[in-house]
């Protein structure tokens, strides 16, 4: 057995099903060994996408996504994928080939200091210098990636270490790491304090973040909210924690969120932040919003608590455990009926306006805009999808339309690149999702900018027979930047016009995809049906006027 065999053996021990990656000389021993196993390998078209595909896979299965690429440019291409996963705390183990140990530091062919380059956005990194360390390092890597605050772990594996003989393979059963002991259970005293405050609060609200998904605490959160009738809002990463149409759900908060959700946060007297970072896009002025309120901050990462807002009650722990403790706690009496009624009133008014507007769009004979109302489209698309469908939104205006308008059902998921905002995330992530859940409907929704960043993955999907359902909202501009130039730069369109290419109908022929084109609001339902019913992989091109703003206004006076 050599080092490469040992790495592969470790992957088997960890129950790894898929490895996403791209080979090269420095990782060739690994890919040679993996051939003798039943682990599936997915050859991507560019390394960044390997990380996004592993990310989609990890987010749906709750398991660690595994990536293996070669040294130098292979590893460097992976960086954006790793950083994207880090920003959203997605558990990955990324293995990079490296030049021979004796050549390290010599600036030889395809050498890059990848662990140095990735230091600020990996949870941990290793350079393996001794073949005997492989079992321990692999065990640690999977443990670190999948516990505490999840995140990517990098293992840089010189080619000579992969080829060195390992006489004795022993995969450790347990770990002894003196530097890493994540807190899982919430402290009983703090749990008690939260429950006490909750019984006193008149206007409590839960703000749920991506941590709820990562910790597998969706059911516990719903149960907790329902048990004590606590309204819930969420961050972008927390979308799907509550079904969109749940009576206690008041939408996404933040500068791209629902006005009634933000208002609910403002009017609350107690905020329970659950697995959310209090990040700038969700809560731009933490001191203002938390002023005069009880702020409970629950996070598995102690460093997030107090980083952006000083909590009244800090509570460190994994959310599934913490929420289970709340549920087990001796029941408290509280009455939030009046508060909920007030929030419902705001929501009903706001939604009624919106529904009327979207409904009007569908029957409008002479709209002021060209093509399709993107909000009406997104709403209709999500409503036509299955209960357990996975909606993967890319980055840009399309993402904000999706966040505000997509309806996520009880068993549905909504994925996007929240923290890093990596354009091109949706298609590869959707491929990972489809591998993770072959029987579920997975739809990626992109703009024409983001789609072009990673559209080469259509080849990966087609090669392996992975079904893709891709929506491209085509407005021929980098819409969100264009909107910014409209609002802040007096319509000086600098480097945001991306034009008409590629012709998507021709592109779908090149990849053997089915093609559906949607050009007007009146065809929305019909074309969505056609798109969703397609057995084959399919791309839906949606013609969108570039004068749409992300928050849904159409700018009549804002013409080229």
């Amino acid at each position, binding site marked *: 057995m050599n080092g490469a065999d040992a790495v592969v053996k470790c992957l088997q021990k960890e129950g790894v099903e898929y490895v996403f990656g791209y080979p090269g000389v420095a990782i060739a021993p690994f890919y040679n060994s993996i051939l003798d196993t039943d682990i599936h390998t997915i050859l991507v078209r560019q390394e960044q996408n390997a990380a996004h595909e592993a990310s989609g896979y990890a987010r749906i299965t709750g398991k660690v996504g595994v990536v293996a690429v070669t040294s130098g440019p292979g590893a460097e291409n992976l960086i954006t994928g790793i950083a994207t996963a880090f920003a959203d705390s997605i558990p990955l183990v990324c293995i990079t080939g490296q030049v021979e140990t004796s050549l390290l530091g010599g600036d030889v062919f395809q050498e890059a200091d990848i*662990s*140095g380059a990735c*230091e*600020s956005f990996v*949870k*941990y990194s290793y*350079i393996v210098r001794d073949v005997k360390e492989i079992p321990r390092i692999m065990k640690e890597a999977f443990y*670190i990636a999948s516990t505490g605050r999840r995140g990517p772990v990098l293992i840089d594996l010189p080619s000579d270490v992969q080829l060195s003989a390992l006489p004795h393979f022993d995969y450790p059963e347990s770990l002894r*790491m*003196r*530097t*890493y002991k994540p807190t899982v259970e919430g402290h009983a005293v703090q749990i008690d304090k939260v429950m006490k405050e909750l019984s006193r609060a008149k206007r409590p609200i839960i703000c749920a973040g991506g941590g709820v998904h990562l910790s597998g605490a969706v059911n516990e959160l719903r149960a907790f909210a329902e048990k004590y009738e606590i309204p819930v809002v969420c961050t972008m990463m927390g979308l799907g924690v509550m079904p969109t149409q749940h009576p206690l759900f008041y939408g996404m908060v933040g500068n791209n969120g629902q006005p009634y959700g933000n208002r609910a946060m403002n009017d609350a007297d107690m905020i329970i932040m659950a697995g959310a970072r209090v990040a700038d896009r969700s809560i731009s002025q933490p001191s203002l919003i938390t002023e005069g309120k009880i702020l409970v901050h629950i996070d598995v*990462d*102690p*460093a997030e608590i*107090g*980083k952006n807002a*000083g909590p009244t009650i800090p509570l460190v722990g994994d959310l599934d455990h913490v929420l289970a403790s709340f549920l087990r706690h001796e029941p408290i009496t509280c009455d939030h009926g009046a508060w909920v009624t007030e929030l419902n009133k705001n929501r009903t008014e706001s939604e009624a306006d919106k529904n009327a507007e979207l409904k009007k769009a569908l029957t409008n004979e002479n709209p002021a805009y060209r093509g399709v109302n993107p909000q009406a489209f997104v709403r209709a698309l999500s409503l036509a999808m299955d209960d357990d469908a996975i909606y993967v939104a890319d980055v840009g205006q399309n993402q904000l339309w999706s966040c505000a308008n997509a309806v996520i059902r009880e068993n549905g998921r909504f994925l996007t690149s929240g923290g890093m905002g990596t354009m091109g995330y949706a298609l590869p992530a959707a491929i990972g999702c489809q591998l993770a859940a072959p029987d579920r409907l997975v739809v990626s929704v992109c703009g024409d900018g983001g789609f072009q960043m990673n559209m080469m993955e259509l080849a990966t999907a087609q090669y392996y027979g992975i079904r893709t359902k891709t929506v491209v909202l085509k407005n021929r501009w980098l819409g969100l930047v264009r909107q910014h130039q409209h609002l802040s730069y007096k319509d000086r369109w600098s480097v945001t016009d991306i034009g008409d290419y590629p012709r998507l109908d021709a592109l779908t022929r090149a990849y053997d995809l089915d093609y559906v084109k949607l050009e007007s609001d009146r065809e929305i339902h019909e074309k969505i049906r056609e798109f969703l019913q397609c057995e084959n992989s399919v791309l839906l091109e949606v013609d969108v006027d570039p004068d749409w703003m992300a928050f849904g206004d159409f700018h009549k006076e804002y013409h080229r």
Partner: protein
Amino acid sequence: MKRIYSVLVENRAGVLCKVAGLFWRRCFNIDSLAVGETDDHTVSNMVIVSSGDRRTLEQIEKQLNKKLDVIKVKTFDETQALSRELMLMKVKYNRNNRRDIMENCTIMGAQIVDMSNSLMTIQICDTPERVDMFLNTFKTISIVELTRTGTLAVTKCSEA
């Protein structure tokens, strides 16, 4: 506000770089940094002196604790600690200032540890403030070379 962090870390390649990188990336100050092995050769001790507002100082501790090579972070302020710094300073002397230099050394408890007919090397080991004070007396003297270790600190026995 100033704060001292005594950080026990794994004695491994790259750890200093990771810790220093953390300060750089998150815009934390490093006023001084001293590293050395402890009695356990697998463990190094880093003494980092930093300054900032309360939230920053709290974040430094939390972010250090988050690093997987960090075993333990102790944090304290100057009044709770005994701190020492070693300075070696090579100066040019002549007949006129030689006596002054020697007197200053005696007053401050510094030692002349090396000498030639025009140069002498002075060693002082004291609190960072007293090292600064001593250094200030050399304003008119030509310093050829100077090096300081950075602050080393342990909490006072009464703090334990």
